[in-house]
């Protein structure tokens, strides 16, 4: 199996970071249009870590969060996970629906709303990848979870863990300029076989 065994070098890390940077730019613009707010994002971070360390990167070990998970496939495949803290979920709902209640409710309407946010972010992110990497990608339906972030990420790590003990995590935090408490985390974890192709596509093959 063509799994990238070596460590990423700095140029490769930079290339992946830049790819994510452009993707996040488009994704947050799409979200900004939906919400009518300005959205900023932090410079993405690329880390190559043992799978056992991923829960620490994702954090939120004590408090439940909303997780929206999508898979993408095509010439490259991988996992995208969006994490929203509880406070952000309430603010997001208030902005999108006008509902001012401070009680979390995950009925079909509310879960669909959050899944759609995940759909839009992921869709615009992947369209950038498609353009830059010159390939077609298909995204799955969004899946909703409300739990500890480290528990939500378990099924993804299980999936990755079948082939490898290490993974690349590309993460970026985004937030609303006027309301910094409204924030979310974006994580992209390519399947181990896809990393090599991704690097080749950005001219950083090994």
């Amino acid at each position: 199996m063509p799994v990238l065994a070596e460590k990423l070098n700095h140029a490769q890390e930079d290339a992946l970071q830049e790819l994510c940077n452009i993707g996040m730019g488009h994704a947050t613009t799409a979200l900004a249009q939906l919400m009518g707010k300005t959205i900023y994002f932090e410079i993405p971070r690329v880390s190559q870590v043992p799978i056992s360390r991923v829960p620490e990167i994702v954090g939120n070990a004590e408090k439940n969060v909303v997780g929206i998970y999508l898979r993408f496939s095509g010439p490259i495949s991988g996992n995208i996970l969006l994490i929203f803290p509880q406070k952000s979920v309430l603010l997001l709902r208030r902005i999108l629906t006008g509902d001012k209640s401070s009680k979390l409710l995950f009925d079909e309407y509310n879960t669909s709303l959050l899944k759609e946010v995940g759909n839009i972010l992921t869709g615009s992110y992947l369209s950038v990848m498609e353009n830059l990497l010159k390939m077609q990608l298909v995204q799955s339906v969004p899946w909703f979870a409300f739990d500890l972030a480290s528990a939500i990420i378990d099924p993804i790590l299980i999936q990755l863990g079948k082939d490898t003990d290490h993974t690349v995590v590309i993460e970026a935090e985004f937030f609303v300029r006027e309301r910094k408490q409204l924030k979310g985390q974006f994580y992209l974890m390519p399947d181990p076989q896809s990393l090599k192709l991704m690097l080749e596509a950005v001219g950083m093959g090994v």
Partner: protein
Amino acid sequence: MKKVLRVRISEHLLARESERLKSYGLGSCIGLVIYEPHKKIGAMAHILLPRPGNSHVREKSAKYAASAVAVLITELREAGCDPSHLRAKMAGGANMFPRKFNPAPERAERPGSSIGERNTRAVRRALARKKIRLVAEEVGGEQGRTIEFNPRTGELLVYKSSGEIKVV
């Protein structure tokens, strides 16, 4: 202050009377404890998968159910425990993307919808094969769990993500 040892994914640790073993945020993973009640020694593994994808791999790690059971038994035996006195407890194996939140497409398989269950079954089987009695379990369902084991009492504390705390 008791010393709390953190057991991460695919890892395993042994603890004695004055220590605690803890695993955070188990979703579909399994937290398995094998312990010797009289000697007050216990070992915990954080299991990711039932078995290696490639059956030729004979890995000796806590990553997989079968090898995790073997690794824990070896550690406990080296610490002076009699294998016939060992007991086991486990928690985890939940379904993190439950149907209640994801009712839609019939054809699309919910991510990891069966992996928690498969992990649970694999651990049960591996324990039975080594003739270790499973005395308590808190598995399945649709909630993440954080667990803490006390070798002195043999109690496994299970903190569910709903806030509920169980002692098994």
